[in-house]
């Protein structure tokens, strides 16, 4: 059986050998750190295995020569393994994507900038850009990250997504993360007296307080997923072809209709979110089903119209 672990072990051996060969021997502690070995014993086990392999004939002069001393390893008679393997496309993309994402988010050290530049020069073909990241970065990401690292309480002005209501909240921040196109702050909200996740582009003021909080024992939420819940309101509607992009941007179920229109089913935890979207879509949306959302939509319409009647 070929397992992932076999592949991982081979990948590591095929990287360690070139390193030792090109440096004319290497320090065992450095190898352990550099290549993520548990301890020297694990490294030595790999080296002993290498010692039994080599070229056909498999006699003393054909096998790879490995010398393991107390704190140093030497490899000889293995010039064919003097270069590390090329990166697979997935590996190249994974590294480029990770580096470029942090650079775009203003989270990058100068070393990361130069590393990505050097890497791109060997893995990106000469015709030009092949991969591109558009990561919007709200102004407060850096400050919030620092506050989370130093565990300072932050006071934020926050305009709720569902409500459009602005509140001031003191937050014990646990993490700052990017997911599905948005940056988030998660932490304990003293106003709500519970753990909450805030979209950073909805934070309009930020003060880092001197107070330092004690990190709680409970597991911290460091990610956010849209999880359909039994409490979700469901709304179904038909979208004209010009509004098909909605299906690309929201977690919805889509059923194709004739004439390139689509029938969409959307689950939302707050009916106002769906009502606002439907209102914005105007005449491109028809046949709305879902009593709760329709009621909220009608209420929203009359609130807006009332506002215009008042101001003129």
């Amino acid at each position, binding site marked *: 059986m070929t397992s992932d672990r076999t592949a991982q072990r*081979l990948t590591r051996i095929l990287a360690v050998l070139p390193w030792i060969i090109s440096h004319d021997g290497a320090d065992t502690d450095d190898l352990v750190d550099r290549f993520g070995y548990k301890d020297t014993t694990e490294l030595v086990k790999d080296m002993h295995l290498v010692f039994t392999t080599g070229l056909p004939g498999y006699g003393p002069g054909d096998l790879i020569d490995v010398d393991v001393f107390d704190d140093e390893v030497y490899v000889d008679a293995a010039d064919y393994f003097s270069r590390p393997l090329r990166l697979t496309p997935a590996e190249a993309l994974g590294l480029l994507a990770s580096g470029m994402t942090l650079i775009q988010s203003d989270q990058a050290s100068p070393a990361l900038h130069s590393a990505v530049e050097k890497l791109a020069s060997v893995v990106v073909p000469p015709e030009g850009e*092949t991969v*591109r990241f558009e990561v919007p970065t709200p102004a407060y990401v850096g400050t919030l990250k620092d506050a989370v690292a130093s565990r300072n309480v932050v006071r934020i002005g926050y305009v709720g997504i569902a409500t*459009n209501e602005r509140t001031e909240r003191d937050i014990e921040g646990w*993490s700052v993360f990017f997911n599905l196109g948005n940056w988030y702050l998660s932490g304990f909200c003293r106003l709500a007296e519970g753990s909450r996740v805030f979209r950073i582009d909805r934070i309009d003021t930020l003060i880092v307080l001197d107070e330092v909080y004690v990190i709680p024992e409970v597991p911290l939420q460091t990610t956010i997923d849209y999880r359909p819940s039994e409490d979700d309101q469901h709304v179904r509607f038909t979208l004209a072809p010009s509004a098909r992009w909605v299906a690309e941007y929201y977690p919805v179920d889509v059923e194709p209709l004739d004439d390139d229109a689509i029938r969409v089913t959307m689950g939302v935890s707050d009916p106002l979110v769906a009502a606002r979207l439907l209102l914005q879509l105007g005449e491109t949306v028809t046949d709305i089903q879902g009593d709760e959302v329709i009621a909220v939509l009608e209420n929203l319409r009359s609130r807006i119209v009332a506002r215009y009647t008042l101001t003129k």
Partner: protein
Amino acid sequence: MQKVVERILNLLAFLLTVGRPVTADEIRHTVKGYEQPTDEAFRRTFERDKDLLRTLGVPLELRHTDLWEVELGYVVPSDDYGLDDPGLTDEERSALLLASQAVRFGGQRTELGAIFKLGGAARTTESGTVYADLGHDLDQLGALYGAITDKKIARFDYRNRRRQIEPYGLIHRRGRWYLIGPERGAPEPVKAFRVDRMGLIAIDEAVGTFTRAPEFDLKSSLAELPSEGTTDMLASVRFDTDVASIAKRQMPGATEVDRTQASVLLEVPYSADRSLIGWVLGFDDKAVIEAPDELRRALVAFVEAPT
């Protein structure tokens, strides 16, 4: 596992030094580790080993063993085997390692193998307070990326049709991945396809089967989103104070022209009535268009229209 690792190292050492295509039969009789008793057992072992080599990134190719083109043999071109060393410093390797630990693909971490190939880096215990998830699994993205760099045709199902694409580039925007490139048989110069909507992705074997159009620019290739565009008109919109700073941030071209205790008046550049109305409606009843009057009336008519 020990046996497999030894056999693969022997096989790779042989292929890297032999300097000519070798048949499976020659490998069986030359390389230590292929003492399987039956043809069938050998064939199974060898098939698995070939897959493993390809997983590792070893370029294993089939070529004719002689001018008469009778037999096919395996070869690992040594030029393609080795990494083009980007010459990273230890500091740069550590920075890349930290970055790769901060970024996930559909919840998954990237493997450490890539960092090892570049020379490895000591792991630090970073607090892990920032991380990004780029949404899609890396195997599929990697396959598409390989097609882009090697100029291979990508085929997949998309909206009820099998497509054939010359892949030019990948864009990650707002949590989604898009593949950009011309579709064979379609009139548009390039099209964008959402990677998470693709079914049964297959990449052709043949390398270098197309040339990227010289005028192609990845940056401007993905159609702009609704509400973006050139701007030449100004609207005055009054926002309740609690949403005003969010509005300003969303519309960098806006200027504040008046402020009261309860509200802020912004002058907002716009190009299309429809997109400005949609944006203003995102603030529910906390934003009111004051001018131009036609726009104001258009919003009310839009809101009052039955759906």
